[in-house]
């Protein structure tokens, strides 16, 4: 009798805490579990009774990596509740700020968290001596993204210049021009990134699933549009609860989700599969070169989709800065009149579609909140992927199976702190 027991306690190089449990006997799988033991934080309870401005300050603290996504979803939910109209300048700046985080988070993921697996090291740190050029390039791209976020949002982690209705501080045109120059130069670094990843041996594992992402007829959507599913088409964001259907499972402080099938995927690959035709030409060229085509059913390709999106993000940022410089920046006072009501904000965080749903009273005090986090929506898909993958590799050794599963979890770029911080709260 051969017994296989795998217990990866706290998977490394992911944001937050997750465990992988596999038990098999004589080549037969008995148990497989993706566990989320993260401490719950009760964010909805924390926001209760706070005014909308404080809510926008608390919300980013859900996650250090995607704080701009949480800030934006929060601000847009409040704006929807109050019926705030936004200027074109605000929308341009908001998109530019959002791009900065997408780029920063993607670079962090594919260079710092995912790449070490393919290069056979435990982390990015030893690469500083063996692959110095790679590390310096990663740091350059990350610094560019961080500096752009600092310029537009005031600070990369927990931005404060973006507010309900507008921006409290505007960048100087000269600063935007410097950024334009650096973004242009970054295209070379991204080309090198494409070359590097083209040469890596990405596991070939296919499991068909449903892909859900925002879709906007006008552009490759990050902060606007409807919910789109590769199975069922589009529906307004106000119907988000019909898509996410969160439920509890015994092994997790985070909720799991399903829609049209057993599970669904959100994130870079889901966006790519839904909105490929709207990517910039350079991004489409990068995806050709990397061998990524819609609809791709290999979850290990999520990192590759992130590289493609990074190219798109830099190109889009160049366009946005052009528009901002051409039209000139002017101070605008946010026009916010609070009223009682409910509003929903939906954005594409780096890891996938994120919803904030707020109900305010007539004083602009938050009465009820619900937030649905991308990683929560992916947990069930990770579990189903593991259930499909392990029987194929069950006769391999523990030393071979374990990294395959860890790499699978890492591919999803999970943000577990976020996902466990939300338990549906109904305020009485």
């Amino acid at each position, binding site marked *: 009798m051969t017994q296989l027991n795998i217990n990866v306690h706290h998977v490394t190089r992911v944001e937050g805490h997750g465990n992988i449990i596999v038990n098999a006997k004589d080549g037969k799988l008995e148990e497989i579990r993706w566990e989320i033991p993260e401490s719950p934080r009760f964010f909805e309870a924390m926001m209760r009774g706070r005014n909308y401005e404080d809510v926008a300050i608390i919300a980013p603290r859900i996650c*250090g990596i995607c704080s701009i996504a949480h800030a934006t979803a929060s601000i847009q939910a409040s704006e929807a509740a109050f019926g705030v109209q936004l200027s074109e300048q605000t929308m341009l700046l908001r998109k530019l700020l959002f791009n900065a985080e997408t780029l920063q988070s993607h670079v962090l993921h594919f260079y710092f968290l995912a790449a070490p697996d393919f290069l056979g090291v435990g982390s990015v740190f030893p690469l500083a001596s063996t692959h110095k050029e790679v590390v310096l390039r990663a740091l350059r791209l990350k610094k560019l993204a961080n500096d752009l976020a600092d310029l537009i949002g005031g600070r990369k982690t927990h931005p*404060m210049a973006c507010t309900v209705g507008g921006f409290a501080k505007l960048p100087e045109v000269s600063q935007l021009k410097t950024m334009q120059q650096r973004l242009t130069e970054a295209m070379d670094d991204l080309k090198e990134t494409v070359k590097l990843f083209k040469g890596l041996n990405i596991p070939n594992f296919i499991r068909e699933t449903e892909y859900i992402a925002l879709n906007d007829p006008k552009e490759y959507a990050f902060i606007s549009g409807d919910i789109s599913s590769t199975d069922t088409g589009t529906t307004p964001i106000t119907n988000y609860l019909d898509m996410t259907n969160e439920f509890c499972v015994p092994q997790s402080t985070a909720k799991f989700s399903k829609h049209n099938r057993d599970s669904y995927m959100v994130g870079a690959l889901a966006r790519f599969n839904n909105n490929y035709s709207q990517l910039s030409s350079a991004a489409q060229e990068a995806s050709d070169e990397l061998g990524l085509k819609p609809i791709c059913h290999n979850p290990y390709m999520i990192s590759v989709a992130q590289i493609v999106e990074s190219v798109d993000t830099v190109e889009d940022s160049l366009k946005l800065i052009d528009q901002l410089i051409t039209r000139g920046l002017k101070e605008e006072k946010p026009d916010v009149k609070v009223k009682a009501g409910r509003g929903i904000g939906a954005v594409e965080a780096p890891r996938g579609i994120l919803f904030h749903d707020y109900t305010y009273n007539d004083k602009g005090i938050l009465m009820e909140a619900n937030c649905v986090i991308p990683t929560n929506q992916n947990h069930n898909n990770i579990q189903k992927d593991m259930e499909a993958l392990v029987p194929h590799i069950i006769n391999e050794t523990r030393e071979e199976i374990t990294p395959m599963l860890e790499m699978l979890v890492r591919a999803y770029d999970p943000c577990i702190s976020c996902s466990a911080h939300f338990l549906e709260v109904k305020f009485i």
Partner: protein
Amino acid sequence: MKPKLAFFDFTGCEGCQLEVLNFETELVELLQHVDIVNFREAISEKGQDYEIAFIDGAVTTESEIPRIEKIRQQAKILVAMGACACLGGVNCLKNFHPMEENLKIVYGANACEYVWYYNTIPARPVSAVVPVEYELPGCPMNRYEFIKLAKALLLGKKFELPNYPVCVECKQAGNVCAFDRGEICLGPVTRAGCNAICITNGRRCWGCRGLVDDPNVNSEKEILQKHGLTVADILGQFRLFDGYLEVSK
């Protein structure tokens, strides 16, 4: 021998660990002088042999208490990073609602049966559980202050946080006073060291670096009165990051 560093996350957003990764060029330099043996967010190795431990996040579950005690036993120097580890941070907002109520709200009708999993306790800073040598406050912590501390520790020099209010740095930055813009600002009583970043960006101070030693409360009260505000107004603001102070009194 290079000193061995370890990073541990408790309940928080891991934004302060991310700030360490955000050093870019300085990070490469730092790595020449130290060994990072444990940093779950960034590396696979899980070394238990370290001299300096950096903690981010607050203590909010029962299981986190023995965990921090064990780290304390191993580490010669324990550093709390960020508002959550230093002050309890936004986590303490939940302390203002009775835990039974929080649980009832969360696990009410049709909720999880698995309440055992959520061994949640009132949120508290690291120093409420074990002694801490250094604190790097802020939400997130100021990464340049982290480098300053790292240098001081490597060279065996003294490290001290500024002991004057944010107003001093705000004046130096040439900002219009947030009170004059009609906002409630905690700058007059909050510890400096952030270069008044929030006010410089057109906002106000939310007190994420905690109170300066011996804050001039009377002067803050005077400012409040001048602008028609009450102590209740400002307490509500303090609860955002400094709620633990209020509850622990």
